[in-house]
């Protein structure tokens, strides 16, 4: 009679970052397979940029004056489409309970969800920027790199707050209505500086002139990423 196979009992919990990346990969894989939210956000972004093109007097107002506002309205609203899906997919078959039963920390679940949302928002932005550039006849100059940097910095704050509110509202009856109602007022301190910095850069001003706006964005990111990460485990308490 042969000896039973030895069972490895010692378990080494994976690191915070590794868990976060695992959760983000799972969310992005679901999105890649279904493409439901991304297609909706992409179509929304392109349609909005087309519709906005017909809402102002083109002969009197320069497209450079309108484009920053258009960009940030589209970024804010298209981001909400992805944020709502973030926890919506976990409600089916109580998938969230299975995730909570795993040895992953709740903070790493939040970080993973936020990373996936950041990737989602960045992809939508990558589509929106050339669309707005094309439809508004914006010049193809080097300022776009600065705008990409501002967009990424602003997206971190938007995604941190949005992911937390998506977790909160997924527990309520009015999730679709409550998420924009709660998240949009918090987006304002991000959208105003981001739109102003974008406007300065588009109008050919040096990057140093946008520094004050970028500092506000960085401060918002630091405060709300920290608060959201600490607060998130309380949204999941049984």
């Amino acid at each position: 009679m042969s000896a039973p196979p030895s069972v490895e009992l010692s378990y080494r919990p994976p690191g915070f970052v590794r868990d976060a990346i695992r959760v983000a990969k799972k969310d992005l894989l679901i999105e890649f397979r279904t493409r439901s939210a991304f297609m909706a956000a992409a179509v929304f972004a392109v349609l909005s940029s087309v519709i906005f093109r017909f809402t102002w007097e083109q002969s009197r107002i320069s497209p450079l004056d309108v484009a920053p506002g258009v960009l940030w309205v589209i970024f804010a609203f298209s981001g909400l489409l992805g944020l709502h899906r973030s926890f919506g997919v976990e409600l089916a078959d109580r998938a969230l309970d299975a995730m909570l039963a795993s040895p992953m920390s709740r903070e790493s679940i939040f970080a993973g969800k936020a990373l996936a949302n950041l990737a989602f928002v960045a992809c939508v932005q990558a589509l929106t920027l050339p669309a707005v550039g094309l439809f508004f006849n914006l010049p193809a100059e080097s300022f776009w790199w600065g705008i990409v940097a501002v967009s990424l910095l602003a997206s971190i704050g938007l995604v941190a707050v949005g992911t937390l509110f998506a977790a909160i509202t997924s527990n309520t009856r009015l999730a679709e209505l409550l998420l924009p109602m709660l998240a949009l007022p918090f987006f304002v301190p991000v959208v105003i500086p981001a739109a102003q910095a974008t406007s300065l850069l588009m109008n050919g001003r040096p990057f140093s002139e946008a520094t004050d706006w970028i500092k506000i964005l960085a401060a918002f990111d630091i405060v709300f990423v920290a608060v959201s990460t600490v607060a998130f485990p309380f949204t999941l308490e049984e």
Partner: protein
Amino acid sequence: MTSTSASSTVGGSRTERVRSPSGVDWFLIGAITLVIAACVNVLMFTPTELRQGLAQKIFYIHVPAAITGLYFSVIPMAIVSGMYLWLKDERLDRIAESLAEVALVFVAVVLCTGPFWGKPIWGTYWQWEARLTSTLFLSFVLVGYLVMRGAIEQPEPRARLSAIIGIMAGCLVPFIHLTVYMFTTLHPMPIVLTPNFTRANLSPEMLRSFLYSLAAFLTLYLAMARNRYRWATERDRLQLLEDQR
């Protein structure tokens, strides 16, 4: 159960004493009297500002309401919300709920009185400048907080999730104050709550009237929050009795 007090099990295992709501709330009546007296003092016994004229008198209502609504209501609400997440005492949740409603009243006063000053001084009822916009959006945060409370039926998740929104709202307030210094706007810069309080740019009579108005508004805020808390306690007690039936 007596007519003046009643024992209640609201708060889980905790027992608290609830006064009868039928009694006259002298604290609230006193607070309202103080606010009326502050208004009379501002209209009759405070000198009129030379350049702005009568419109400046709105300052004695607008600024105390803003200070009370933004700093004495929303920030305590955030602190109480944080304490709820730590202690899990539902009385703290009721306090946060009460402060949010009172804060919304004071922010509404700020938003309603501002245009009456703005029209003669700025030439427009509404101006999209940073601080005004931020205050408007803070009122949306408070409305969202209260709507969310209504969207969750179970008391425990309602209290827990509301506490998170309360903390987030508190974190938003410093950004609102920062915008005054960081944005070059039409809004007058703070003349009392400046980093150096001793250099407040007000005449002694005006400063005295302002501080009196601020004290009156703070008293009204306390009285309203106390009343709202009592109502929330009674509501929860009634809910508990209905659940037990």
